[in-house]
């Protein structure tokens, strides 16, 4: 099958695992399909052309379709527009962190004692993580309504898996301060994201949602068994504010009942107070959340013992006998059992293993610290409540708890796509030397790049495949030391040049990253595109910008040909602008010098025709002489030039050429007469007597100038 070995994998692939996913490619054509064609477009979008076998019967049938397949690794949870907002928003936090990393690196070169992983580095990473997190949407706490509905126990936020995953990464890797109270962070996390598990199975959240629907229609709430069950479940996962709120809906609080249900109400309130006084091993609580916070473990332990003692005392109290309402009595005592850490109760009242896990942290093992014991506990909970279907967030969490960076990375990539993995790597490497080594090690199997670079390249490719996001790909590519520039060059090369704005943007990126050869190639393509599409001026302009001497020389040559064919004024005007554009930089072709001189010569001639000034005539003669002297002037131009100059040669007032000059021209004429005998000579398009009239004019001029010079 594939490869001759199984690499270094300890766990061999099973045949089943190797089967790739087969995706349908919908094209809407009637069979039979005769052939397929494939082509990669920009980034990682693949274009498939489906050709249909032509059939005899119908005339106007379709012969094939081209279909685009984008392999962007995104799920449908986030819309395209939202996704682009995230992509654009994450650029500046990413770039800022990279630049900080670079300055840290240069600092540590100076003094070998500072490493990027010490000092305040993680604070930068946390800042980055918070910036990224804020892009992924806001959580409940910010969306408090002004008038609170006493019967609304649940807010209705729409948390995303992506945000949930990011928060996990932040809690475990970026936020060093949270290391001491990780279990409590998980409690908060589940409170925010429990609803994400509701799609595949029942959860405490889904129970609460269901109950909230019934709440409005319930008359005597405490008679309803569901009321007590839902409250106990919520208590099990530590949603204390919700539980207390629900408890206070108890009928005994109603003013008309308070009198004859005093003891009952006292018990309800006592439980509510105990719940709201629950000691929490955490620095602080959000406003509206219940519990008493303790930063130091000894204080927490002391408070915990005290709290537990109070619960136990209430449990044994005699007031229970005086409580006439059976459901209330049972319900409240059940809740006390939860707070006392009754395993059976916790297990029946929670649905998802994660909920049971949280319940364990809250009531059974409140002093759990360290990933190893957290991992062990997770395994136990999974055993007690196996997952019906695997969930990407759980895969990630297990990887994190298992302290396996590779799995974390793989789960990020598999579950949340290239954006996640690229940005999460920064968090992952922040505090862990193991992750840092793993991600920065150069690998032969990857063509010499590190995993960090690989993931950035993949993400950049995803960005490249969309016309609205390709422009941010360079930020990520330039952070790749080895292959980023290569991919950037390819990306820039694959941008169309026929839209001026896009072309300028493209060249701006080249300039920014000093990609001179790419930019000259792009300008070359633009030059050729314009040249061939009738925009000769822009064509020449871009070729000049590209310093493409070979093509410019050829263009100059073409001009010679064109100019040489007929020397009419209209034709000249057509070319004049181009000659101007071609410039006269010493670097460009020698041919251009000729064209410039030729242009000057023609200009002077035109002036003579208009105003007959001797000065212009002198200038024309100078141009003529320099043209004829210049070895670059093609031979086939000699006669047309001289023929054009007949007027100069026969200048009425006085001869304009001196003896030396006249002799030069006569020699050229002689050379031309000899050249005409050769078979490859190209005859200029001139009247048959042109040569003799030029010769006569030159001879006359020689006579006149000799006389004058004597």
């Amino acid at each position: 099958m594939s490869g001759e070995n199984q690499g270094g994998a300890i766990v061999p692939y099973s045949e089943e695992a190797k089967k790739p996913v087969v995706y349908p490619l919908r094209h809407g054509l009637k069979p039979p399909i005769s052939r397929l064609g494939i082509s990669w477009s920009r980034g990682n979008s693949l274009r498939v052309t489906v050709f249909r076998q032509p059939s005899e019967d119908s005339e106007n049938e379709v012969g094939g379709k081209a279909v685009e397949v984008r392999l962007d690794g995104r799920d449908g949870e986030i819309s395209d527009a939202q996704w682009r907002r995230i992509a654009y928003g994450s650029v500046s936090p990413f770039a800022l962190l990279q630049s900080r990393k670079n300055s840290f690196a240069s600092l540590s070169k100076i003094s070998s004692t500072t490493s990027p992983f010490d000092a305040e580095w993680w604070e930068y990473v946390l800042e980055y993580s918070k910036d990224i997190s804020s892009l992924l949407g806001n959580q409940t706490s910010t969306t408090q309504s002004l008038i609170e509905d006493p019967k609304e126990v649940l807010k209705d936020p729409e948390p995303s898996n992506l945000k949930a995953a990011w928060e996990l990464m932040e809690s475990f890797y970026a936020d060093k301060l949270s290391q001491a109270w990780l279990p409590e962070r998980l409690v908060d996390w589940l409170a925010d994201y429990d609803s994400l598990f509701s799609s595949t199975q029942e959860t405490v959240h889904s129970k609460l949602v269901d109950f909230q629907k019934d709440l409005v229609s319930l008359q005597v709430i405490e008679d309803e068994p569901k009321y007590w069950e839902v409250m106990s479940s919520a208590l099990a996962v530590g949603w204390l504010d919700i539980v207390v709120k629900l408890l206070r809906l108890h009928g005994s609080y109603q003013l008309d009942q308070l009198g004859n249900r005093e003891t009952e109400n006292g018990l309800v309130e006592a439980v509510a107070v105990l719940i709201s006084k629950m000691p929490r091993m955490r620095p602080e609580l959000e406003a509206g959340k219940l519990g008493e916070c303790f930063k130091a473990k000894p204080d927490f332990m002391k408070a915990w013992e005290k709290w537990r003692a109070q619960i136990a005392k209430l449990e044994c109290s005699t007031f229970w006998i005086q409580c006439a309402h059976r459901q209330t009595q049972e319900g409240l005592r059940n809740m006390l059992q939860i707070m006392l850490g009754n395993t059976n109760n916790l297990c029946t009242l929670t649905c998802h293993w994660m909920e049971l896990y949280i319940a364990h942290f809250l009531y059974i093992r409140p002093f759990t610290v360290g990933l190893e014991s957290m991992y062990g506990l997770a395994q136990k909970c999974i055993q007690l409540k196996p997952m019906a279907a695997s969930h990407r967030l759980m895969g990630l969490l297990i990887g994190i708890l298992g302290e396996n960076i590779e799995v974390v990375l793989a789960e990020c990539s598999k579950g949340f796509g290239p954006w996640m993995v690229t940005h999460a790597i920064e968090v992952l490497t922040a505090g862990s030397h193991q992750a840092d080594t793993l991600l920065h090690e150069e690998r032969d199997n990857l063509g010499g790049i590190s995993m960090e670079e690989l993931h950035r390249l993949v993400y950049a490719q995803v960005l490249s495949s969309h016309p609205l996001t390709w422009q941010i790909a360079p930020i990520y590519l330039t952070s790749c030391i080895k292959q980023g520039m290569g991919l950037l060059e390819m990306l820039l090369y694959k941008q169309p040049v026929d839209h001026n704005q896009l072309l300028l943007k493209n060249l701006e990126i080249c300039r920014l990253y000093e990609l001179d050869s790419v930019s000259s190639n792009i300008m070359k393509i633009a030059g050729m595109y314009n040249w061939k599409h009738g925009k000769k001026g822009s064509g020449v302009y871009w070729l000049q910008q590209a310093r493409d001497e070979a093509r410019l020389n050829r263009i100059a040559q073409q001009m010679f040909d064109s100019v040489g064919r007929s020397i009419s004024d209209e034709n000249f005007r057509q070319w004049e602008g181009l000659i101007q554009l071609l410039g006269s930089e010493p670097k460009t072709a020698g041919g251009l010098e000729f064209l410039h001189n030729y242009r000057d010569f023609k200009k002077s001639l035109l002036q003579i025709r208009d105003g007959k000034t001797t000065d212009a005539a002198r200038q024309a003669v100078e141009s003529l002489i320099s043209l004829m002297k210049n070895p670059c002037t093609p031979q086939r131009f000699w006669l047309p030039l001289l023929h054009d100059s007949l007027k100069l040669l026969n200048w009425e007032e006085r001869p304009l050429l001196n003896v030396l000059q006249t002799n030069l021209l006569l020699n050229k004429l002689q050379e031309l007469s000899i050249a005409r005998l050769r078979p490859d000579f190209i005859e200029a398009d001139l009247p048959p007597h042109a040569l003799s009239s030029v010769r006569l004019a030159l001879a006359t001029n020689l006579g006149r100038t000799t006389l004058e010079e004597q």
Partner: protein
Amino acid sequence: MIRFCPPLNPNRGYELAKGTIAAARRSAEMVWLSPIAVSGGNIATLDKGTTCSSWNYCGQRLATGSTDGTLSIFDSPDPSSSSFTCNLKTKVHAGAILKVVWVPPEFGDAVACICSDGSLLLWEEIVEDAQPLQWKLCKSFESTSTQVLDVQFGVSSTSLKLVAAYSDGHVKVYELLDPLILKNWQLQAEFQNAIDSVTMFRKASCISASISWNPQKGENQGSSFVLGFNSDTPQLNSSKVWEFDEAHNRWLPVAELALPEDRSDEVYAVAWALNIGRPYEVIAVATQKGIAIWHVGANPELDGRLSVEKVALLSGHGGEVWQMEWDMSGTTLATTGSDGMVRLWQSNLNGVWDEQAAFQPTA
């Protein structure tokens, strides 16, 4: 090489629920392509009788050829749109067009068409004198006895080269004389696809050929391409890497991409991967035995040959492989073949090549 890290303490905790750890291990070696979200859809509708298609360098133009010799050009209204409509149809040949190949953009907007009679035509979009924009025939490579099977263009610093493979097993390399005009081509070399350059195989009969230029751009890049035949002459079949020897102005075979026992295998397709910074080249070669991935050394050894290593043999399409294309980073290979599927291949972090996804066309 990555190994799956064993837990720090093998005896700790409980066993993870069955399947979880296996999944975790598999994903640790996972590849970076997944998950694939297939989005997009129809972007162009082709006319009846269309047989071949080709996208230009930036994916903004599509050229198709059909059985009645019509060349169609599809464009999109703006660069951000992915809907293409046919803006031009021109009859370029009396017979069918079998293959369309775009000329590199540095030389204008032009395509080469291989026609059913074996001729090769170059058509170009151009404005000439005062005439409007039109597609014009700029060169016709005609041959009486042999047919062109494949053609590919290679750009070196200033010149454009064209390699054509013929049905008699010959390879011709033409060079463009004037970068502005696609009319004048000079035959630079003619040879057969054999390591032994002395023997001539006179009666070779080839069904198909596949050529792929080294896609590297840049001033210092020499010219090289890989070529394989599907013919009745074993010596011509195996894929060989040909490199232009500037000093002696000749083409030399510098590598053969076939193990000794596979040398006579008919080659269906070859594809040279883009190299954005690897120290070696990667070339895919498809034969009836499967798709082989070759690593080719960058620098010649003492005998002038390049070191080659076959790193994987992938089987998937069952029969003939029609086409292979590398993505822009040169890491993902897309293939299509007679089983009517499109398959994507990648190497994982251990360097093991594997199929990552497949696409099945459905109505």
